Structures are given as C-alpha cells and as structure tokens.
C-alpha cells in the first residue's frame, strides 16, 4: 500500500493519478494534507501538483467522459467530502481502464459511489437555493450567511446571478470562511474579517424595512399552517434542524 499525500486541489488529484500510472502503483491510498504531518507513514509519496501532468490526465478524461460526466466528477471533488478521495481516484482509474464510457455502469462500486456523492451534493446545493434568506443592508446589498454540509458555494453562482440580476448580494459560507459577492455585473469570491466587525454595527447596518419584512414573513409562515393537518415528522424531514438558525421563519 502506497499513501499519496496531495494538496487538496483538483489539479493535485489529477497529478496523483498521473503518478499512479507512472509508477504503476496498484494499491494506493490518497489523502489531502500537509507533508510534514504525515511523514510518519511508511511508503508515502508527496504529490507535487504540476499543471502539465494534471492537464494530460484532464485531456484523457475528456476523451473518456461526457462533458456532464466530467462536471459531476469535478463537483464531487469540490464538495470536500471527508474520506472520498480514494473513491474518486478509483473512479478515475476505472474510467481509464475501460475501453468504453462507463458513466452509467451503476453495478460498479465506484460509479455507484460517485452517483451517490453527486446526489448528496446536488441536494445540498438545492437546499441552499431554497433556504438562503437575504437581509437587506443599508447600502441595498442583500446579505445571507450559510453553513452547508458540503462546499457548494461555487455551484450556486449561476442560479443566484441569473435570478437576482438587479440587486447586489453576498452569500457567505461561515463554516468555510469565504463568500460570493455580486456587484450588479459579476461575482467574485471574498472573505470578510468578522473578528474586527462589531456585532452592534452589523444590526444597525440593516435597512429600516428589513425587520418589517422579516416580521411579515414570519406572520405569513404561521398563517398558512393548517393545524388540523399537523405533521412534525414530515416537517423535520423537509427542514432539518441544522438549517434553522439561518431561516428567518424558524428563528
């Protein structure tokens, strides 16, 4: 068993695949991390991300996978799900070792696993599209904080940019400490230093009407409930508790 340590980037993962084929490794374990923490492993290789190698692997993938298939692989890696890198490498190796396109070979464990990962990531992306609650700041920027289970912020750009084209907005992943800012023309990644922001200032930064609409929304949420049909189990399945703290109607 050889352990490959890489930097966590997609290019890094592809470089690792390159090394696997170059050194004809069969039993491998891949993990993201800093080299100095992991030198204790026997038989470990440090993968130095190299764009030329990564792009050769990418070129191969493009020949073997559909554009959509490649997109799925990319999204699965970007989600940063714990302990899935071996499965992704297993998938890529299966792609290269098969003569035909294997995207729909669900009987294979790697193909099946990728399909499960993609389903989980898509669900989280969809939840964010549903559960994001913007709050209007004094400068008419709409701000929202999120804490998704997986790293899905980059997958949200298209939806929010085409929908809220005429308002400035920020979606901030407070778990991963980075956000998206749309300035009426384009989106860019940003990071905010909350340590220096006084919480009192944050509240006073809201637009005067913000509290009014939040109250109206909470009222609406209560009014449309039909108590005779109460079904807390179903409610919880659709709106799991971990999302409540950012949902205006559940605070």
């Amino acid at each position, binding site marked *: 068993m050889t352990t490959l340590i890489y930097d966590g980037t997609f290019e890094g993962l592809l470089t690792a695949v390159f090394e696997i084929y170059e050194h004809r490794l069969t039993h491998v374990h891949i993990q993201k991390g800093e080299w100095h923490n992991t030198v204790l492993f026997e038989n470990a290789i440090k993968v130095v991300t190299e764009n030329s190698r990564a792009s050769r692997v990418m070129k191969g993938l493009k020949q073997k996978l559909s554009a959509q298939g490649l997109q799925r692989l990319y999204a699965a890696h970007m989600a940063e799900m714990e302990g899935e890198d071996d499965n992704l490498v297993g998938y890529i190796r299966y792609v290269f070792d098969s003569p035909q396109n294997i995207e729909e070979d669900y009987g294979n464990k790697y193909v099946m696993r990728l399909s499960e990962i993609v389903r989980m990531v898509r669900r989280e992306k969809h939840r964010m599209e*549903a559960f994001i609650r913007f709050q209007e700041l004094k400068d008419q920027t709409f701000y929202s904080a999120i804490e998704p289970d997986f790293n899905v912020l980059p997958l949200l750009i298209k939806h929010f940019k085409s929908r809220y084209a005429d308002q400035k907005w920020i979606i901030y992943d407070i778990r991963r400490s980075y956000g998206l800012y749309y300035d009426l023309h384009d989106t860019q990644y940003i990071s905010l230093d909350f340590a220096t922001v006084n919480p009192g200032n944050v509240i006073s930064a809201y637009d005067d009407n913000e509290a009014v609409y939040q109250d109206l929304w909470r009222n609406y949420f209560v009014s449309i409930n039909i108590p005779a049909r109460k079904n807390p189990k179903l409610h919880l399945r659709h709106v799991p508790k971990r999302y409540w703290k950012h949902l205006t109607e559940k605070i």
Partner: protein
Amino acid sequence: MNVDRITEKLNILADAAKYDVSCASSGSKRQNKDKGLGNASNGICHTYTEDGRCVSLLKILFTNVCIYDCAYCVSRKTNDIKRAAFTVQEVVDLTINFYRRNYIEGLFLSSGIFKDADYTMERLVQVAKKLRLEHNYNGYIHLKSIPGASDELMREAGLYADRLSINLEMPTEEGLKLLAPEKNRQDMITPMNFLKDEIILRTEEKKLFKKAPIFAPAGQSTQVIIGATPETDQQILQMSDQFYKGFKLKRVYYSGYVPVLSDNRLPALNTAVPMVRENRLYQADWLMRFYHFNVNEIVNQDNPLLDLDIDPKLSWAIRNLQSFPIDINTADLRMILRVPGIGVQSAQKIVAARAFRKLNWEQLKKLGIAMNRARYFITCNSPQFERRDLTGTAIKQYILAESQSKYIKNSTVQLNLF
C-alpha cells in the same frame, strides 16, 4: 406603510388562501430579462409549514369578500369572519420584497368574488401586469381564473401569468350542486377550454415567430376537494384522467376536506382530514402521468376504492400476479416501471446499468429500489429469489408486517370512523 394594517391583512388573506393546495412553481421557462428581477425555473420549495406542506409561493387572496355561499368554503358570504382586501400596490410590494429576500418563487393570487367575475379578474390581472411591466419582475405568477370572466381578460391574464387555474371544487357536478348551488360546472369548463385552445394556438405561433410572447407557459391546473361528498376514488380518478386528456391540464390537485364549518350537508366538524386517502390519490395520479398506467387498471368497477393500507402500484401488482415475476435484466422499461418499490429514476438506472453487466440483489439495493416490496415481483442475477407460490393476500401481509408504515397508526384511526 401602515405595518399593523398590512400584517393583519396578510394574516387574514393568507389564512383564507391556505386551503388551495396548489404549490407548484415549476414548468415555466421564463428567463430573467434585461437584468431585471427574477426568473421562473425548476420549482423550489423555500420552506415547509408544520403540517409538512411545501411553501413555494406567496399564496394569498386579493380579498376574502365573496358574493357566493359555498358550503365548504371559509370565505362564504354567510360565514361571520373578518374581511379584508389588499390594494394592487400592496400585493406588488409584498411579492417583490419577499422575492428579493429569497423567501418565495413567486406569487399565487386567488380571490373571493366581489361585484362580479370580470371586476374580480381585472384586479388579479392588474397585479400581474404591474409586476411584469413596471417592475420587470420575471418570477413565477399563478393566477386563479375566475369562473365566468370574459375571454379578453383571460387572454390578458395568460400574457402575464405562468400558470392559470380554475378549481372544479367537487369531483362531480352533483357534488357541486349540493354544496355550491349558485355555481355551475360549465362556468368553470368554458374558460378552461378557452385557455386550452389559446395555449395551443400561442405555442404554434411561438414556433413560427420566436418573438411571439409566451402565454401561460406553465399551463393550467385544477383542484378538487376530497371527502366532503361521497364520490368514489374511481369517479375522482376518472374525472382527472378526462381532464388531463381533454384539457391538457398540467396538474389535478386533491385537497382532503378540512372541516371548517358546521353544515348538515358536510362531514361533522370533528371528522379527521382524509390525509391517507389524499396521499393514495396522488400516488394513483403519478401512476397515470409518469408510469404509463391506464386509469382503469388502478380503479374499476370491481375496485372502486384505493387500498389505504398499501400504495396503488402494489395493489395493482397483487391483483395481477400472473404478470410476475419479471427478470430485471431483460424486462422492458415499461414493465420495470410497474414493479412495486421501483421508481422512475431507479428504473432508468437499471436499464442503463444492465447494458454493462447483469445486476444482482446487492447492486439493485444500492440503486435505491425498495427491496421489501420489489423482491416478491422480480428475479435478477442471483440464484436466490422468492420461490414460494404466495397468494396476493400473503404478500400483502408479509409486506405490511415488515414495514413500519407511516400510515399504519393513522389508518387504524381512520378505519374506526366507519
């Protein structure tokens, strides 16, 4: 803005609108135009109420003042409740501000009928028109078509709304006569028919001229109340089938009657909402629309009522054991869709995956099929399969014994009522 007054209106007019169960915000392809606000896409449920229903749209009545006296309706003329009415601008402001905060996919606007049909319909159209033309709002709009409104207004509504709907209210004409004697079914069918023809015409036009305006791109839907009158499931589903085919409806909604009023024509106030029956009707509806089932296979003279204990597909399979078991590795997609416990997505994955290799139980399970039901009806690449020659009743009992159905507790309560 008078916040207290708006809040009160919102509470009254949302409360009055909540018995309309339509919540869909999908089926429209309206794009964001000239960097305006919003688009209508695949449908998103932004939250769920404590009764577990999806909240996708700001669903309100324009007013709950109504000249009619329908027995099943909270807003009926003789009901002593608080009345309120929005102004056009108030509805527009609420919609825009909720939308900008990502609370909703759009607006669902219905209304009690005040003065007459055209007067009411005109107000609804004004709201939609203002949103589209003055605010460049491209989010979803669902408008109620008011029975008896003129063709001209209906045509205008179609230009601004994504979906239009007229509620049939009762599954049969007799039911309607009993509970809403002032209304007649023909007044509902006429505008529905007008819109159907108009949608077909406009779609043809759009094919020829790309610039032609889109017209009610998410089509029409309707709703019937279940359990207020004594129709059988057969009558209800046959009505749906007829409306799906004849009027090209996108959806028929089934609304389990919630006893809100005491009236000797209606179930008593303490009657339970028929939630299980409602669920079974939706399952049957799905079988007709996505699983290629004919309505007569689901309900017929011998089986006029859906089984409350088990889903209608399982019920059908048990009545048709001669068609099973099927081999998952060779059967047609259409037949795989008929296996209890296999959904549309799993069926498609099975057909795609078996081109690479024959599938076994382990792989099928991973694909997400419900083995507790499916295993009685299929064989696969494994020497193990159900060999006993089980009767339908036995299969049903085994499945019920194993499953912790969310309905078992409910259904015993319901059965006790009869």
